[in-house]
């Protein structure tokens, strides 16, 4: 186990002692030094190929625990063993949660999850409203090319039009929309 004295001028004991006395700058310095030690501590324990295991997340977990339990440090004991005991506890805790985390197929929950396409959104409603102002062919063409995302040739085939006619209807449709809504923006 590495010595827990900070790399800086003051040992962690002095910093934490001052911090518990209300010295805000000492506390910040203490947490920064502790974070460095913990990053090294965690880095050596986290499995190399654990994709979902984030070193920095765990360091932050430990820092929060150190913060919450700082009153359990006794001023006459070294900070190192105390800090690493908390780190070990939180690391084991994280492993346990990590081990329990399982991946499930989202398809199994299809009846529980909302279909994002079915949720009315402001944009979706605006588009429907805008299309509603167009008539017949123009509406079908604009809808097909923009909302449904079909190509010009697919649209032409489906609507029984030539590709040129589709292009013309599309441009006229867009021009009509621009005329109706464009001036407001």
């Amino acid at each position: 186990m590495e010595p827990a004295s900070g790399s800086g001028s003051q040992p962690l004991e002095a910093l934490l002692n001052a911090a518990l006395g209300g010295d805000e700058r000492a506390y910040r310095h203490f947490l920064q030094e502790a974070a460095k030690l913990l990053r090294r501590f965690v880095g050596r324990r986290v499995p190399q190929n654990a994709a979902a295991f984030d070193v920095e997340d765990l360091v932050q977990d430990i820092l929060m625990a150190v913060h919450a339990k700082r009153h359990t440090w006794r001023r006459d004991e070294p900070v190192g063993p105390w800090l690493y005991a908390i780190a070990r506890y939180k690391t084991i805790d994280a492993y346990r949660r990590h081990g329990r985390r399982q991946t499930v197929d989202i398809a199994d929950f299809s009846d529980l999850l909302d279909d994002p396409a079915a949720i009315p959104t402001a944009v979706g409603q605006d588009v429907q409203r805008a299309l509603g102002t167009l008539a017949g062919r123009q509406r079908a063409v604009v809808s097909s090319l923009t909302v449904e995302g079909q190509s010009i040739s697919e649209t032409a085939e489906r609507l029984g039009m030539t590709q040129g006619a589709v292009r013309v209807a599309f441009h006229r449709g867009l021009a009509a929309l621009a005329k109706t809504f464009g001036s407001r923006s």
Partner: protein
Amino acid sequence: MTTESLIDRLVADAEARPPETAPPWWLLGLIAPILALAVFLPTIGPRPDIAHSMTTMPFDMKFVDAGLLALSAFLALTALARPAAPIRHRLAWLALPACVLLVTVAAEMAVVPQSLWMTRAIGSNSQICMTAIPSMGAPVLILLLWGLKRRAPTRPTLTGAVAGLAAAGISAFFYAAHCTDDSPLFVATWYPMATLILVAAGALLGNRLLRW
């Protein structure tokens, strides 16, 4: 969130609120027997001939056993409650009450004829022993778990179990004043079983409540 901004928040939090405080052990040690007494006195109370029985050795040994259990378990708790505090030699003290109990059992078996062993072990208070010790110990266990929750035990289940042991020791200390079965054979049979209920409850609750 970056670690640097977390540190900002922790520093701001430290400025806004003082660190948590834990109730001191002496205070818990003072309240625990009072809680057990508060259940003991209005319900079963001491046996009528207590003044006379106090002069007999087997009766007094029950208090020595229970008292040693309470003290050694309490001592272990104070270590279990702090990260990095050495606990192994503290836990070893738990063997002391067990050894004392075994010695008294051996002494009893040496002087009492074998034909009486079973009668003495079964006694006449086993049911009340199994009910009274857990019920008197329950509020003590809750108190100890509360005190531990505000500290930082890194072995929640073990700590809860030892808290159950301490609660059982305090509870058995008072129950011993009620029970008319003084034979170490009875004590060694039923007291540990009643204790086990509190230990199991403590382990279960500790595992749930003492995580942080």
